[in-house]
Each structure stands twice: as structure tokens, then as C-alpha cells.
């Protein structure tokens, strides 16, 4: 396992407050709409449909009425040590050293799906079908994001085109820094309860850098060493325990 020194430089990351997330799915719709994600006729086939951001419902397993359920939105974790990047044979996916985000070059991808096998979060989706925008729905497609063809893998890019947009604007105004609010992915912008915060994890001016120090913050499958840049917050012990695999008696409740 490689460990990278990411103490300096920009590292875009996300903090999702699960106590605020109500599972409404607006982020999923916003993401799909922003990124020209194709919609199958049968979207209930969750093993084949494309959703860069997927919401899981996790429950504490207790019976009625002690049941508790929490929604967990899962975008690409944009790992600092991504399992998917080194495995790609055609260099179709790459971690941007300047932002820490993991990109996917659709026109380069040969569709071997090795990266999907590598990703424990199932954050990558393969185009099993031709993209479908039937009945004139191709009219709502955004030119900022290219639609993908059948046979390639696609994934969340932290709305990279929005970063480009923000950079272009900053450049035009003669600035080098991008403020916290200037670049946020579509899901963050859309969240009606403001459960998602986005920014540069290394920048103390950005809210996220403080949030990830919360005793309630955690990441998914931290033990694997993937170093995800998507953090979660939850005050519920069982939710934090559910984020990773623990042996009997191993989970220590931090707060």
C-alpha cells in the first residue's frame, strides 16, 4: 500500500451529516441531471443501473418499535489511496494530484471492469446498455458533461466541470484561489437539509476541515487503507459501527 503525503495542496472532500440526511433522493436526481446520467427503463435493477450517488438505508436491526433507520448517501469516496486507479490497464482513470479527485476518461476506458472489482464501495458503474434518453429526453442533456457510451465505466467526479467553471471564473477575475462556495458538486448544492458540506480538507478556512475533526466523524471501510475523502457524521454509535467491519468487542465508541 502506498501512502501519500497529502498534508499540503488542495484535497477536495465531502462531509455528509447522516443525522441531517433524510434520504429524499434529491442529491441522486441532482447528480443524474447535472451529469447526464442515463436512465434505464428498469431502474429497479440496481445491479445494472447507473447511479453515481447511491443511497443505502441501514437499520439497527432491532425489532418494532425500537427500529432505527439511517440513510447513507454514497458518492465516489475519492480515495487518497484509490484501489481503482493503479489497476486500470489503459490509464483511463487517474487521481488528479492537484485536487485529489479521481477522474475517469470515458473515451479511454476499454470496459475491462477491473476497477469495479477493485472498488469496495461499488462506486463505479458500468454501462451495460447503450445510454438511453428516449422520447426526446436528450433535449435536456448538458453540454458540460459528455454522455457516456455503452461498455465503459463511469463514476462520480465531484462534478469536475464545476471546478473547471469556477477556475475559469477565478482566472478571468485574476484570482488564484477558489472560495468554498464557488465550487460545490451538484449533490451538495441540492441537498435540501444541507446535510452535505464540501470543500478543501486541507484548507482551514473551509468548513469541512473542521468537521472532519469531529468525534462523530468517520469514513467507510477505513481499515482497508483506501483513505476516502468522503467523511460522514453520525451521533449514533451503531451507524458508526456499521461503517466498517469490526470483530467482536473491537469497536470502540469514541465520543
Amino acid at each position: 500500500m502506498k501512502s501519500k503525503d497529502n498534508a499540503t495542496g488542495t484535497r477536495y472532500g465531502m462531509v455528509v451529516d447522516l443525522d441531517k440526511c433524510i434520504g429524499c433522493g434529491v442529491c441522486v436526481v441532482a447528480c443524474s441531471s447535472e451529469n447526464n446520467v442515463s436512465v434505464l427503463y428498469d431502474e429497479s435493477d440496481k445491479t445494472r443501473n447507473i447511479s453515481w450517488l447511491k443511497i443505502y438505508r441501514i437499520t439497527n436491526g432491532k425489532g418494532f418499535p425500537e427500529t432505527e433507520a439511517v440513510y447513507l448517501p454514497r458518492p465516489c469516496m475519492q480515495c487518497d489511496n484509490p484501489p481503482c486507479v493503479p489497476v486500470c490497464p489503459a490509464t483511463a482513470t487517474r487521481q488528479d494530484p492537484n485536487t485529489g479527485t479521481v477522474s475517469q476518461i470515458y473515451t479511454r476506458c476499454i470496459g475491462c471492469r477491473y476497477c469495479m472489482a477493485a472498488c469496495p464501495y461499488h462506486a463505479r458503474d458500468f454501462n451495460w446498455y447503450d445510454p438511453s434518453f428516449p422520447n426526446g429526453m436528450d433535449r435536456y442533456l448538458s453540454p458540460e458533461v459528455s454522455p457516456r457510451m455503452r461498455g465503459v465505466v463511469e463514476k462520480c467526479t465531484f462534478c469536475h466541470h464545476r471546478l473547471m467553471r469556477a477556475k475559469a471564473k477565478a482566472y478571468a477575475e485574476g484570482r488564484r484561489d477558489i472560495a468554498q462556495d464557488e465550487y460545490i458538486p451538484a449533490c451538495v448544492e441540492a441537498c435540501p437539509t444541507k446535510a452535505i458540506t464540501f470543500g478543501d480538507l486541507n484548507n482551514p478556512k473551509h468548513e469541512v476541515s473542521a468537521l472532519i475533526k469531529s468525534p462523530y466523524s468517520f469514513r467507510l471501510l477505513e481499515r482497508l487503507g483506501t483513505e476516502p475523502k468522503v467523511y460522514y457524521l453520525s451521533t449514533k454509535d451503531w451507524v458508526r459501527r456499521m461503517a466498517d467491519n469490526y470483530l467482536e468487542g473491537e469497536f470502540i465508541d469514541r465520543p
Partner: protein
Amino acid sequence: MDLALIPNGVQRCSLKTFTSWAVLWIVLIVWGLVSAFLVFWKGLNQTNMNHYFAFGLWIVFDLSLIALGAGAFFTGFLTHIIGGIFLYPFRDNLRAVVNAAVVIGFICYSAAIAMLGVDIGQPIRGWFIFWHANVHSMLTEVSFCITAYLGVLTIEYLPLILSNRKLKQVPEFNIFGNTLHHIVALFAAVGTFLSFFHQGSLGGMFGVLFGRPFAFREGFFIWPWTFFLFIHSSIAAGPAFTLLCIWVAQKATGKQLVTRDTFTLLAKISGWLLATYMIAKIADTIGWAYGVVPRAGLSFMDFFQAPYGVWLIIAEIGIFGIIPAIILITPKYRERENLLVIGALMNVIGIVLNRFIVTIQTLAIPVMPFDRFMTYFPTWQEWGIAFGSIGYGILIFSLSYRYLPMFPQEPELNPVEVLGTVVTDSGAIKRS
């Protein structure tokens, strides 16, 4: 009809019989071609693979074919590289099977590459692996090596093809074939080098997946252990598979094609390699169960859920690992032909099972605690490609056997009565 093509000094069945035999396999090939066409035309939705099962039957078949095809490089290695010195007493035995091993290797690798071509979502971009190579990917290494090695196998196959009676009459072919044959050791060496790496990289492909605790086997030197396990297991299975193929060919033709002690030699090599492999594999499993698994916060049994239960690993290591190893290394058992064949077969099944488990189990196990355990069953299109490649293999092998002097010992072991110039239905006769 095709008498002129049949090698000297051997007898072959009638063209009619051969055709009806071939048709059986052509049907499988057609099934495979139809499947491949559907996959190219409509995409990979023709399979039952999905986001969870990113790899399916085809990768299992690929891994298995490449493992079983290892007989080619390993026999070549034994024959041409160290055969001259260390294995001198067995030189003839090895020479007797090396052609068959090369043909089997060629079949396995060409089928595997064809299958990979179908398996990728963008077949017309397959060459991007070479063009935009990411050298840090095990899959890149695999692709480079198996492609190059297929080239080597083709070169090794060429002298045999060119020794076809008809082709031999063309002086250019004859001389070219002979020249190639002279330097076959070079290609055997290159093949050995390439095979060593891609067999290992195939294992490494899974061993480096640190996001998948089932497959992840890092910690040995700079590589994952599976790198060496795969090499080890493939050279254990390769000779056994060559043995099996020749044995089946003997049964099918009703002729003895190699001497009995050749079988014993192959069995011995295979058996000892399997035995040592089993030790390594068990060590690996224990090391994994007490290292990787608890580090990931999981317990051994978390990885085995119906239908991919713990029986799989029992079958792989116990039934199809230790038992064939014992059979093949014990001279008493190995001398009995049926046990020998069963041992070789179990050996092969064990390795295939290993490749299956490594591929499917890795993907079936949810890593996120709240995710689901998945199962998968291939569609007829996937089976079509798989069976098509089997049909292709048998057809190529049969054609090679029929028209090429694949088994140098055959004429000796099956002397043909000289009947003058009379040509019978039963095949060609020795003319000289």
C-alpha cells in the same frame, strides 16, 4: 480424400468419421460465434454480469485456460532449457509431449485472448492497453505477456504446422520450419520468461485488490503472494492437463501415442509441484485467515455464505488438492492408469476451482457491512463463448493430430502394415 495431408507412417480414421466428429465441435463453435456476435452487437447486457459481478464466467475460464495452458511453457522449459542437462534421461519422454503441449498452449491462449476480446466493454479499444499502458496495473502486464506469449506460441507451433506432409513439399516452408526448429530454445526461453510473469500477474491481479479482503494477499516481498501461488499452481496443473489431453486422445483414437513412462514422468512432475503448491496454498490460507482477515475486521466464516459456502475451499484444498497430490506422488498409485488419470483430473479440477473461487468469491462478498451478498449465474451467451472455446480447442487439437506429426513416438508405437500402394478407407499408409 485428405490422404495427401496425413503424416507419413501413421493411420487416421476416414474423413467421414472425422467430419462427423468435427461437426460436434463446430456446433459448439457456432454457438460461441452467435454469442460473440450478440455481445458485440448488443453489448455486455447479454451476460448476467453486473456491477457486483464485474467479472464472470469468462474470467474464470480465462484464468483456468491460462493456468492449464501452462503445460506449454513448462514442458518447453523442461525440454529445451533444462532438458538437455538436468533431465537428460527423460529427453525422449519430453520430446514426445512437447508438440502436444505447444498445441494445447496455443489453443488455451488464443481462446483466452479471444474471450477477453469479447469480455471488454469496448472491444475496438482493446489495444488501448498497449497504447495507453498503465504499467502499474497487473492487467497490463498480463495483457502484454499473454499477447507476446501467444506470438511465441504461434512461432513454436509453426514448425509443427510446416511439417505437414503437403506443406513440407514447399521448400521455403520446409527450410523455414527447420530453421525455426533450430532456434526453438530461444522462444522457449522467452516463453518461460513471459509465462512466469503473466501467470504471476494473473494471481497478482487479485492479490493487489486491497479493497477486497478476500483476494488481498500482500506482504510477501514486494508482491502479493498470489503472484507466486498462481505460477506454482499453473505449472502443477499444466503437465497434468497435457497428460489428460493425451490420454483422452489415446482413448479417442484407440492408439498409444506416447510411452507409458511419459505419463509417469508427467504425473510425477505434476504431483510434486502440486504437493509443494498445496503446502504453499495452505500456508497462504492460514496467513490470510490470521492476517488480512482480522485486520479488515472480519472473521474467516464471513467469507463463506451460501451458495459459495466453506465447502468450496474444502473442495479446493482438501478434495481436489491434497488427494491428487498424494495420488500423483505415490509411485504405487501413479502406476495404476485409472488412478493416474483420476489424479491428474482432480489436480486440474482443483486448479480450476481455485480460479473460480478467486474470481467469484472475491466479488460475491460484500465489503461494506450493510451491503448484500450476491450470487450470479451465467446466461446462455456466456456459456456459449465458454463452450465455443472448448469446441475450438478440441477441433484444433483434432486437426493438428490428424494432419500434423504431433506425436513423434506414434509411428513406432503403432507400426502400420505396408500394403504397397493400396489406399484403404482406414487412412494413409506409409509409403517409404
